[in-house]
């Protein structure tokens, strides 16, 4: 104990040794725990993809369930059509792409009118040194029904938000949505991760009857039973707007693919012949509990209908 703990030499030595020990310890911990952390992240991704179509599985069964349900993982190019590539769609990290430069392109996109969508598509095609952008699309077979899950990324109030939106085989009806966030305000913007916000997406459509793209918007003051809108979160306006922007923009980029789906779906139902119109009508107003619930709330709309009649 003859060492003077306050001498310069000792202080310097102490600091050096401490830094080396702490750095080694943390590096060891980080390296040894990394495989488990990556597995957790991947399992959560699988869980979220499946949750988008209403399949809830615990994390330890996510991998088997994913392999069972997800039939195909497609890669969509900047033109919205399936791209031939060696890339595994599951490995595409849309959040990373978004942060690494896609968001700069997206900010130029007019998500209300989509007047400059062609310009954006050509910019997306030139992304990443001409390799173009890769959008994953998961094709799920749930009880014989084909469902398409689209990953979404966007910006909330305090940080990134993301989600998965599942579209039915008709290419326009939403069968489910999940959202999550990094740091939105608890009780306000963070409510996008709650079922109360997500369930109303069920049964909404992203195209109107004429076949024009409408997307889905989170509407302030209530969506009033609109087939293309859900209730925004009170006090979470910027997060809700972020959700709207993220859905509108992403679905617009996939639009050509969904139009293709609609074409093949129409020809399939057309071959059945009778009752085509009533079949379409049923699809526009699906018997989802959420839509019925929204309609039941909509007192004003009932009144106006009476007046119009």
């Amino acid at each position, binding site marked *: *104990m003859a060492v003077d703990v*306050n001498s310069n030499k000792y202080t310097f030595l102490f600091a050096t040794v401490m830094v080396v020990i702490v750095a080694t310890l943390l590096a060891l911990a980080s390296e040894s725990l990394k495989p488990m952390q990556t597995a957790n992240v991947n399992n*959560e991704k699988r869980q979220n993809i499946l949750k988008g179509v209403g399949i809830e599985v615990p*994390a330890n069964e996510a991998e088997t369930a994913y392999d069972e349900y997800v039939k195909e993982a497609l890669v969509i190019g900047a033109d919205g059509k399936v791209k031939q590539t060696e890339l595994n769609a599951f490995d595409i990290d849309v959040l990373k792409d978004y942060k690494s430069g896609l968001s700069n392109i997206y900010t130029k996109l007019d998500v209300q009118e989509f007047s400059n969508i062609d310009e954006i598509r050509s910019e997306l095609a030139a992304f990443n040194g001409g390799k173009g952008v890769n959008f994953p699309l998961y094709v799920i077979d749930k009880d014989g029904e084909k469902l398409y899950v689209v990953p979404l990324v966007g910006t909330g109030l305090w940080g990134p938000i993301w989600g998965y939106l599942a579209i039915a085989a008709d290419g326009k009806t939403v069968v489910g949505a999940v959202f999550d966030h*990094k740091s939105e305000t*608890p*009780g306000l913007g963070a409510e996008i991760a709650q079922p*109360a916000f997500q369930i109303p997406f069920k049964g909404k459509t992203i195209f109107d009857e004429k076949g024009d793209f409408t997307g889905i918007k989170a509407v302030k003051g209530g969506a009033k039973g609109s087939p293309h809108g859900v209730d925004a979160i009170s006090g979470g306006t910027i997060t809700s707007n972020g959700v709207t922007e993220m859905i509108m923009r992403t679905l617009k980029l996939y639009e050509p693919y969904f139009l293709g789906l609609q074409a093949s779906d129409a020809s399939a139902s057309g071959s059945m012949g009778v009752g085509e119109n009533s079949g379409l009508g049923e699809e526009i107003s699906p018997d989802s509990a959420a839509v019925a619930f929204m309609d039941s709330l909509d007192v004003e709309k009932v009144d106006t209908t009476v007046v119009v009649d």
Partner: protein
Amino acid sequence: MSEVAVEEKVKQPSEPLFSKKNKALISNPLDDDNPITVQVLGICSALAITVQVKQAFVMALSVTFVTAMGNVIVSLMRNYIPNRIRIIVQLVIVAALVILVDQVLKAFVYDISKALSVFVGLIITNCIIMGRLEAFALGNKPWPAFLDGIGNGLGYGLILIIVSVFRELLGSGKLWGYPIFGHKVGALLSDGSLATEASGLYALGYVDNGLMILPPMALITVGVIIWVQRSRNTKLIEA
């Protein structure tokens, strides 16, 4: 002289692990020496994470762990830490502990780590932790330092839980995520459907107080707790 020294040495370990003095290390921070209401430390994090009881609970556990372990480590090293860089040393220890905890949580209990990760930064900058390392661990043995860390962590957690109970109950009508006042229209029911009509208090016209969700209300709640505590315990009132 030598006899006294020997007696000291023998007497020291015979002090029971939970002597009156050691018990006070745990009980004092819960009341008379509470880190939030009396020392007025760690207010920022108390405002940020008390919207829901669950979050407050996880935060309280994490802070208790980091305070206790940090105290023990600094106490073990207290004779070897150069005086001039002691704050940096403490900071490095706390930061390393927090990162370690976060990494372990991410690997083994991913769900909890997701709820916690936002607050990791807040733990590192929490004044209570640095305060206890500086004020207690540097001058005491590891066991009392450990108890002091546990006590202060619990004292912090106690206030956090009290504030979050008020805020979650009055702000969202829930406790630990379970609805207490009944359902609002549009709330998710246990069978996965949405409530089409209000039940419980909401059916009588009760409306959640949105102000309770916002940080200023946490400050006011802490203020009320301080007021109540000082009016009951007059020795805390400064002249």
